[in-house]
C-alpha cells in the first residue's frame, strides 16, 4: 500500500462513517473544530481504522496526540511501516 493509498482509505472510511463531505477531508482539518467529531466519535474512529487496516491501535499512547486529519494520516503510515518491519 502506498502512502497515498493509505491516506485515501483513511479519508474514505472517516467520511463514510461520520457522513462528512469528501472536500472537507483536508490534512489540516481539526477533528473536533472542523470535522465536529466528539469523544464518542473518537471511540468509533479507532474501530473504523482498526477495521480498515486490520491492526490494533486502541492502546497506543500516541493516539492521544492526534488533533488533525493529517495527524491520523501520519500515525497510520508510521504504524503500517512499523508493522511491515516486524
Amino acid at each position, binding site marked *: 500500500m502506498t502512502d497515498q493509498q493509505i491516506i485515501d482509505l483513511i479519508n474514505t472510511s472517516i467520511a463514510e462513517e*461520520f457522513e462528512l463531505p469528501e472536500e472537507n477531508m483536508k490534512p489540516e482539518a481539526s477533528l473536533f473544530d472542523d470535522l*465536529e467529531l*466528539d469523544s*464518542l*466519535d473518537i471511540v*468509533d474512529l479507532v*474501530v473504523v481504522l*482498526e477495521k480498515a487496516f486490520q491492526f490494533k491501535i*486502541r492502546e497506543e499512547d500516541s493516539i492521544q496526540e492526534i488533533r488533525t486529519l493529517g495527524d491520523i494520516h501520519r500515525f497510520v503510515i508510521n504504524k503500517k511501516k512499523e508493522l511491515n518491519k516486524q
Partner: protein
Amino acid sequence: MRRVVITGMGAVSPYGKGVDLFIDSLIAGKSAITSLSELAEIEGLRSWVAGLVNDIDPKEIPRKYRRSMSKMSIYATLACREALNQAGLTAEHCASGHLGVAIGSTTGSTQATQEFFDSFLSTRGLEQVKSTVFFKIMNHSCAANVSQILGITGRTLSPSAACSTSCQAVGYGYEMIAFGKQDFMLCGGADEYHPLATGAFDILNAASIKFNDHPSRTPRPFDYERDGVVCSEGSGILLLESLESAQKRGVNILCEIIGFATVSDPSNIANPDKASITRCMQLALKDANLEPSEIDYINAHATGTIQGDIAESEAIAEIFGSKTPVSSLKGHLGHTMAASGALELAALVEMINRGCLIPSLNLENIDDACSNIRHVRELETASIKAAIKNNFALGGINSSLVIRRYKKDD
C-alpha cells in the same frame, strides 16, 4: 386534580409518516400487511407476514443524534416532532422543565443486540463494538433519545409492558399532568420490527400462519378464521397538556382524557383473562366517573388471537351489553406492539373529531364466541362523546383509557 387534554399527535405507521396518511389509510380500509420472503428462510418460523414502516428518511435527524438511535427511536422522534408541531410547542417549551416524556418500547433494539452478539460471539472480544450500541439496546432508548434531540429537560419515564406500553405511557402522563407535576407530556410508544417478535408469538402458537400468501387478509380480529397476531412496527405519540395551559395558549384541543386504569393479571403470564379485562375497564370507567351507558364506542385491543378476542368480547359484553359499537384496528395495521396503544388512540381521537367509526378490517364472519357484542362492520357515521381504548399485554398487564370529545363550554 387538573383536567388533561390532547393538543398534538404524531404517527409513524406501516402506512408511512404522519397522522393524516395514517387516518386516511385506515378510513380507506387499506391493509398495511405484506409477506416477507426473509421470514420464510427462518427454520421453524411459520408466520411470514408483517407490517413494516417504509418511506421515511432517517437523515431528517442529524447524525450526532441519529448515531445513538435504532429504528424505534427514529420513529418516535419523527412522531414527537409532528405532535409538538401540531400543538404549537417550541424548543423553549421543551427546555422549560415543564414538558416531560413518557415513551416506551417492548425491549431495546433487538437488531442492535443481535449485531453486538454477532460481533462478540465471533471474536470473543469487544474491539469492533461502536460507542453508541448501548444507547440503542437500553430499555429507555426511545425516551432518552427523544429527550436528547428535542432538548427536553422535564421528567423522563419509559414504561415497558409489551402491548400495553403506550396505553400505560399515556395514562401515566395523564396522571402526571393531573397531579400538577408537569404541564406537557409527550406520551406514547415505539417498536421496530425484528423476526423475533413474530417468533415469540409463533412459539406460543399465537402468530398468524395461514395467510402467508394473502397478507392483506390477516390479522382477522373477531373473525371465525382468525389465526393469530401479525407483528408490525411504528410509533404513536400524543402531546398531553393541562386544560388550563391549552386554554391559556389558545391552542386547538383535540380531545380530553378522563380516565385510566392498568391492572396486573396474575392468573397466567400468557393467557388473557376475562375477569381481569373486565376489572380493568370498570376501573377506567370509575376513574372517568362514567357509567357504561355513557360510552359510545370501544376501540378494542383484539389482535386476532383465538383466546384474546373471546376474552375481550366477553368482558365488553358483560359491562356494555350488545349495543355499544366495537372495532379493532389490528386488521388494518397488524400489531404495532408498544406503539399500538398510542397509534390506535390517535385514530380514536380522529374518529371522534371526524364523527366516524372505522370498522374491523377482515371481519367477514363473526366468530360465534365473539358475537355477543356490536361489531362495526363498515365505515359508520357516529357522534361519539366518550370512548374507551383497551390494550392487553403478554405478562398479564391490562390497561384502558377513557377519552371524551372536548367542547369549549364543557
